[in-house]
């Protein structure tokens, strides 16, 4: 087969954007805190979460390519009006919490760079995001924030430079339960899985496939994007946990502030490391803000049958555009109260873990429907993995809130 250079370039660009776009505030908070609390003991959870997001993103992308349907079209068609509406409400609440947390993250990163007051930067940050959403094409948004987010790779360099105990880190890949404080350990395990498999990533990914007008021919591109992009993104999660273990656990620091996480890169790499870390965090949470706010608008528009998508200008999909504007204002109102974005992140991740089955079950059902999928319906590998992860997700959904209560949101 002839390799077309342009196609390869597009794939490479897409993958780079996916790496930069993988980590959001939930991954930042949970990976670093897990490292700072349990060292390398939770490393094994990261590949499980990454494989889960690969399985369901690939499936939802394939549904988008084969049928032109994004997730919430499928949710309503497969689960009916009542269950679909319940799923919609749950997903909108979780999305809004996540959006508020990401916006808080944007303001914190801007504050570290500029020293201006937090609330001023919240407002400026939201105005900046709204401008980007209003004028920049989706493809370019993904690139700008994805490539900017590549600055996060400084954490990978930091992780290596810190000279961690690799034998100890390797042992962390063997699943086990810590003897000291097992409840907190399980809370972190669920938080790590929830952060890696956040539902908005799947909403955004599948709607993005429809926006890019994927056809059945793009099934291969979809698979490559999901597997390579998320795997490499997962390496960043590992790096964050190593930094958490090697810097914060060693010094007994609990990284309760995003700025503290950035200091993890300063310790081995100095001022340049710190600057790259902050810029990387800014682009990562900024990009995640865009993904979450669009996901909220995608879901509502798809459930109600409105015109949607950024491939149209705002006037071409009016209620879709109005929805993301309103969501931005709501999220701004939440963080303006002064609620701690890191705390908000923990709630958002735990509640999204509860909402996971509502998203993933309909995708699995549609991906098995020959009327929609034709020859692209799930094969044995996708179905086996899909079912295994369905069990994982159900366990997470049931355990998330009790663990949150037992551990007082990870405080003890």
């Amino acid at each position, binding site marked *: 087969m002839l390799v077309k250079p342009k196609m390869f370039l597009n794939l490479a660009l897409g993958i780079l954007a996916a790496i930069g776009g993988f980590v959001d505030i939930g991954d930042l908070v949970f990976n670093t805190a897990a490292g700072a609390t349990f060292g390398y003991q939770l490393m094994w959870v990261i590949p499980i979460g990454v494989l889960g997001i690969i399985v369901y993103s690939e499936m939802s992308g394939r549904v988008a390519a084969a*049928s*032109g*349907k994004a997730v919430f*079209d499928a949710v*309503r*068609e497969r689960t*009916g*009006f*009542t269950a*679909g*509406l*319940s799923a919609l409400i749950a997903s909108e609440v979780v999305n809004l919490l996540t959006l508020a947390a990401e916006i808080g993250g944007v303001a914190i990163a801007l504050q570290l760079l500029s020293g201006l007051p937090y609330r001023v930067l919240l407002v400026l940050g939201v105005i900046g995001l709204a401008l980007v959403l*209003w*004028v920049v094409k989706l493809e370019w948004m993904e690139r700008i924030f994805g490539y900017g987010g590549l600055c996060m790779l400084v954490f990978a360099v930091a992780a290596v430079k810190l000279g961690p105990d690799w034998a100890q880190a390797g042992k962390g890949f063997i699943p086990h339960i810590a003897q000291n404080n097992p409840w907190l350990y399980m809370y972190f395990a669920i938080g790590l899985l929830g952060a890696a498999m956040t539902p908005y990533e799947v909403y955004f990914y599948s709607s993005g496939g429809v926006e890019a007008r994927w056809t059945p021919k793009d099934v291969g591109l979809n698979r490559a994007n999901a597997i390579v992009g998320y795997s490499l993104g997962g390496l960043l999660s590992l790096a964050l946990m190593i930094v958490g273990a090697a810097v914060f656990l060693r010094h007994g620091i609990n990284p309760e502030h995003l700025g503290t996480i950035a200091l993890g890169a300063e310790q081995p790499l100095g001022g340049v490391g710190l600057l790259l870390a902050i810029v990387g965090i800014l682009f990562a949470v900024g990009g995640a803000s865009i993904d979450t706010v669009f996901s909220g608008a995608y879901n509502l*528009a798809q*459930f*109600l*049958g*409105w*015109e*949607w998508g950024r491939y149209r*200008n*705002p*006037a*071409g*999909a*009016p*209620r879709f*555009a*109005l929805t993301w504007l309103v969501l931005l204002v709501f999220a701004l109102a939440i963080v303006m109260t002064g609620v701690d974005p890191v705390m908000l992140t923990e709630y958002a991740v735990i509640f999204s873990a509860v909402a996971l089955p509502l998203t993933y079950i309909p995708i699995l059902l549609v991906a098995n429907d020959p009327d*929609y999928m034709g020859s692209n319906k799930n094969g044995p590998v996708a179905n086996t993995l899909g079912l295994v992860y369905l069990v994982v997700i159900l366990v997470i959904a049931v355990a998330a809130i009790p663990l949150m209560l037992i551990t007082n949101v990870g405080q003890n």
Partner: protein
Amino acid sequence: MTKLHLGHNILDHQLLDKDGRRCGNVDDLAVEDAEVVAILSGPGYWPQRSGRIGRLAGWIGGSRRVRIPWDEVAKIDSAVHLRRTAPEYGLGKGDDRVRPLLERIPGADR
């Protein structure tokens, strides 16, 4: 496949007008003598679809009801394609009402 069977398969599917515009969903179906005679679309039909949550959503969404005779269906694939444009059926009014507001902001038509 009987018409009724087909009807149940399109419940909750996307409606597309003749230009491919997304203009609502199949919110319910009108059935007479075990035959689907019309597609029903609009928040006014939500309360009859489900209990409390449907009534709440209908209360928020308003009482708009649009009835599209079955003969207006041109094609069914993963969506339901209609023969005419959305405004001719009274569909897509929400989008049409919001559009002028957004068009006052520069760049809305980029």
